[in-house]
Structures are given as structure tokens and as C-alpha cells.
């Protein structure tokens, strides 16, 4: 199928990069760009395909990050084992938040608010509780080795993240060609119509939240492995939530490559800005915010354009003007 061939090509091209250059700058760029891709892809599963806007996706990111650190430092797990555990925990949080939200019929702005609230709650709790290191955070001890998921060169991290991005691409491709994906998009586009033809909106949205949360959690776990440090602000703060959602929207919601296009574009923009203006605090986010406004103003379907849905459509409670007359 076309999708899988393109994905395979993508994997080959990107995976080959470390063989063609040893430039730290390039390798670092590829790694951080891939990382941004994963975050937006994760958001896209629930936001783009499911039509449920989460403004607090950092909730899942932070869960994954903390579990990855805690599993190694307090439970003595090998990081490769800790990774699926982190993903499972993040997915579990997704299940909890999803079940509670959808059980009570929260949609649109209300769902966005609730996810924001949950992220804040987790952030405050993480600041107060000892096993997360409270406000100080957790620092992963340095011990470079492949077995310890701490690679000497960026190449190792690139391949690891490439694996995760490929997993996300696979999940997204599956959403485009499966019954579940068809049901999810039906619920996004018109929940009542979907119900009338046999779709259970609650279970469909719940599963999407679990998938989205799990992928986001993987991103968090990766972050901890690369930077060896996590604290409540990084884990549950709005920066990560915003990065994930703006990348997905800019790139094109509900598409396969949209999140990657968006994440990479923003990443390039951020890098350019840093080169031009230096390391100014907050400048990245100003750009993300401005781009978000501009995209919504002028290019609501995002870069990927065709086939992507416009933010209007699912925010309107998924109903559209039935009669043109």
C-alpha cells in the first residue's frame, strides 16, 4: 500500500543520515526534529483524527518522563524495559482522563479546559511529592552504553526516535485504513450520525486517547534519556502541550505527514530565529503562538492541505450545514 512504501522510504532516508555526516549540529537537529514530530503525531491521533482538542497533552508526556526516570532510579529497571512501562503508564492516564471526560460528554472547549486542568494538577502534585523529586526534579545518572539507552553519539538517539516516529506513522496509517480509524473520523465529523450507524463514540474516543497518550508518553521517556533530567515544569508545563498541538495544526490535522511537516517547519523556524536573535527566552513560543494565529487565519487546513479537516468543523460539535438551501 502506498502509505507503507512512503513510510519505508522515509525511514531509510532518515536512518541513513548518521552514515553520511558526523556533524554534531546536523545530527542534533535531526534528533530534535524527530522528537518534535513524535509529539505532534501523538497529538494528531486524538486531535486530528479524533477531533478532540487537548490543551494539556503534556500530561501524558510528563507521566512517561517521570515513570521512565523513576523506573530506573527507584525500581532498578533497565531503560529498555522502562520504556514500555512508561508508555503503559501514560496510556493508563489517557484511559483515566478519557473515560472521565467522555463519560460526562465533554467536548470542544470543555475538553480542552479539562485536559489543561489535569495537566496543572499533575504539575502541582509533582512539585509537592517526594518521589518525583518535588520541585527539584529527577536527574538520571550518567552511564553511557547501548544497554542503558544512553548513546555516546546522537546517532543512537536518532535511530531510537526514528523507531518511535515510525511506530507513530504506523499507527496513523492504520487509522487511515482501518475500521477503527473510519469510526474515529466519523465521530469527529458528526457524532450523532456515527451513533445512528452503529459507532460507539465513547469507546472509540477512549481508545484514541489511550493511543495518543501512549505515544506522547514515549516522547517523555525519550526526553529523559537524552537530557537526563526532568522537573515538573518541563514535564507538565504548557510548552510541550503547545508544541505538540501547533505542530499538528500547522502541518495539517488528520493527515499522515501533516504533523511531521508542521513539526519540522516550526523546528526550522525556531532554529533560524535562534541563529538570528540569539537565545532569547520565550522567543520560540512567541513564534509558535503567532504561527498558530496566522495558520488559523490564512491556512486552516495546514500545510498538508487537501484531505485535512478544518478546525471549524470539529469544534462546531461536529455538525455541518446539512442543507445548502
Amino acid at each position, binding site marked *: 500500500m502506498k502509505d507503507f512504501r512512503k513510510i519505508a522510504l522515509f525511514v531509510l532516508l532518515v536512518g541513513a543520515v548518521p552514515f553520511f555526516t558526523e556533524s554534531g549540529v546536523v545530527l542534533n537537529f535531526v534528533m530534535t526534529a524527530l522528537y518534535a514530530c513524535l509529539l505532534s503525531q501523538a497529538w494528531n491521533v486524538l486531535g486530528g483524527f479524533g477531533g478532540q*482538542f487537548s*490543551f494539556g497533552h503534556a500530561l501524558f508526556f510528563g507521566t512517561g518522563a517521570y515513570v521512565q526516570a523513576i523506573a530506573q532510579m527507584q525500581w532498578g529497571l533497565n531503560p529498555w524495559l522502562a520504556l514500555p512501562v512508561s508508555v503503559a503508564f501514560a496510556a493508563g492516564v489517557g484511559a483515566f482522563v478519557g473515560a*472521565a*471526560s467522555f*463519560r*460526562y460528554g*465533554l467536548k*470542544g*472547549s*470543555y475538553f*480542552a*479546559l*479539562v485536559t*489543561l*486542568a*489535569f495537566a*496543572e*494538577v499533575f504539575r*502541582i*502534585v509533582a*512539585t*509537592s511529592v517526594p518521589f518525583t523529586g518535588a520541585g527539584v526534579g529527577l536527574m538520571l545518572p550518567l552511564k553511557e552504553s547501548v544497554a542503558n539507552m544512553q548513546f555516546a553519539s546522537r546517532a543512537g538517539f536518532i535511530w531510537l526516535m526514528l523507531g518511535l516516529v515510525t511506530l507513530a506513522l504506523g499507527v496513523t496509517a492504520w487509522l487511515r485504513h482501518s475500521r477503527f480509524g473510519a469510526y474515529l473520523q466519523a465521530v469527529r465529523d458528526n457524532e450523532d450520525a456515527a451513533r445512528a450507524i452503529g459507532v460507539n463514540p465513547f469507546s472509540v474516543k477512549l481508545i484514541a486517547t489511550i493511543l495518543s497518550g501512549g505515544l506522547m508518553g514515549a516522547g517523555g521517556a525519550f526526553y529523559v534519556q537524552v537530557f537526563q533530567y526532568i522537573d515538573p515544569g518541563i514535564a507538565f508545563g*504548557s510548552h510541550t502541550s*503547545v508544541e505538540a498541538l501547533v505542530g499538528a*495544526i500547522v502541518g495539517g490535522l488528520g493527515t499522515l505527514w501533516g504533523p511531521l511537516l508542521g513539526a519540522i517547519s516550526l523546528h526550522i523556524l525556531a532554529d533560524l530565529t535562534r541563529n538570528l536573535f540569539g537565545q*532569547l*527566552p*520565550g*522567543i*520560540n*513560543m*512567541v513564534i*509558535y*503562538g*503567532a504561527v*498558530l*494565529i496566522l495558520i*488559523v*487565519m490564512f491556512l*486552516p487546513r495546514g500545510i498538508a492541505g487537501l484531505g485535512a479537516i478544518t*478546525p*471549524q*468543523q470539529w*469544534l*462546531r460539535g461536529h455538525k455541518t450545514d446539512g442543507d445548502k438551501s
Partner: protein
Amino acid sequence: MLDLNILFPSLLNGITTGAVYALIALGLTLIYGVLHIINFAHGAALMVALYGVYLLKEKLGVDPYLALPIMVPAMFVLGYALQRGVINRASHGKDENILLVTLGVSIVLENLALLFFKSDTRTIDTAYTLATVEIGPAFIALPKLVAFGGALVVSAVLLLIVQKTDLGRAIRAVSKEKQGARLMGIDVDHVYAMCFGLGMASLGAAACFLMPAYYVNPQVGNGFVLVAFTIVVLGGMGSFAGALLGGLLIGVVESLGGLLLGESLGQVGIFVIFIAVLMLRPQGFFGAKA
């Protein structure tokens, strides 16, 4: 531990803080009630207003209370321009996009502040910053008492505007039936912008009352935004009475919660209430179902 000497000040503290919360929530509920949009930029706008008051004091020596006639109109104009120039344009006139656009605005504002002011927390020094007033067993900071009074006055003014003036009538018409109002010759875009301006203006007032007793940093908006939302949802979207009562309630909950659980976990109490209300009774206690 829970004797009156400790409870009473905490309660009083909560009520005075709650009044200011209510003032912040009033703007939000007005905007929601009329424009039917959840203004994610509300917290950031408050932060901008607080910096405004701060700068007026530090650079021009203007006392925060005397800054009222400057801040209120300035914020009004900012709000009007924001709605008419950015939000309305970006949403293409449709209610739905606004979620993303207001989020974008809040991100831009917050991080511009970070850029210009760094993340330091700033306060201002006035003659009365440390003055207290004795009420029973409690010592209440004078600025907080003034804030309480000021919040009530501003709320009353807002209510008067909405109930007694022509603008208010137009606002009520538009919020009930946009198309009908348009057919009657009301400039809906203008009314929307006026309403948004009023919401922002009330933030300008709130900032003047808050600054002497509080502080400002780029993130301060975030804390206020969620508290304001909690109040608005609790009191009911679009209900003034709900925002006022909700504000007082939340102020008290936060104060008592802080007393019992420590400050940071006390805040968690608010969010837990927020989540619970969203799930169990999203129309709040006075509002119409959103």
C-alpha cells in the same frame, strides 16, 4: 488548630481575594455570555495589565489606584482592537476557531512578557503596601480590603452598563439572538468588540487593585486563567451573579485549602472542583447549558 482565631482571618482573606477573582471572572463570563467564546487569552491579558500597573508605578511614579483612569480605558482599547483586529479576523466570523486563536494570543502575550521582563517576579512598593486593618481577631492587609471594595464597585458598574445603557441593551440582544439583532440594525461586530473591551477593561481595574497586594511575572496569567474558568463554570457561563458568588466561594476554598493542605496542594483543590463541575454540572449553578 481549627479555632476561630485561625479560621476567621483565613475566611476573611479568602473573601477579599475571592472578590478580586470574581472581578476577573466577570470579564470572562461577560465575554462568554455574549460572544459564546471561551477566552483563553484572559489570563495573559491580566498579566499584561499587571505589568502595565507595575510600569506606571516604577517608571512614572503613578500610584496603582490613581492608575485606574489610565489602565481601564487602555485595556478597553486593547480588548476592542484584539477582538476586532485579530480574533474576529482569524476566526472568519465563526465561533469555533476562537479556541485556537485565543490560545495563540495568550502564548504570544505571555512569551513577549518573558522576552521583555524575564521571568523575575516583581512587586511594587507603596506607602500602604504593608498597612493592615484590624477586623476582630484578624489583620487584613489594607490593599486587600480596598481590592474587595473596588471589585464590588466595578461589578456594580458593569452590571449597570449591561442593564441600563443602550450599549447594554444591544449586548443583551446580540447575546440572545445574533441574527435578529443584526436585522434590527445593530452592528454585531462592534458590539462584540465593545463587549470584549469591557471584559478587558475589568481586567485593567482588577490589575490596579491586585498589584499592591500581589506580584507579577509572565506566568501569573496561567494561575489566574484556570481559577477564573473554574469560577465561571461553577457560577454558570454568562451569569454575573454566578461569577460573583463563585469568585467568593473559590477564594474561600483556596484560603481554607491552603490552611489545611499547604499552599500548593490548596490550589489542587480548586482544580479538582473545576474538573468535577465540568463533568457533573457543566452549566454551573446559575448559567444556561453551554
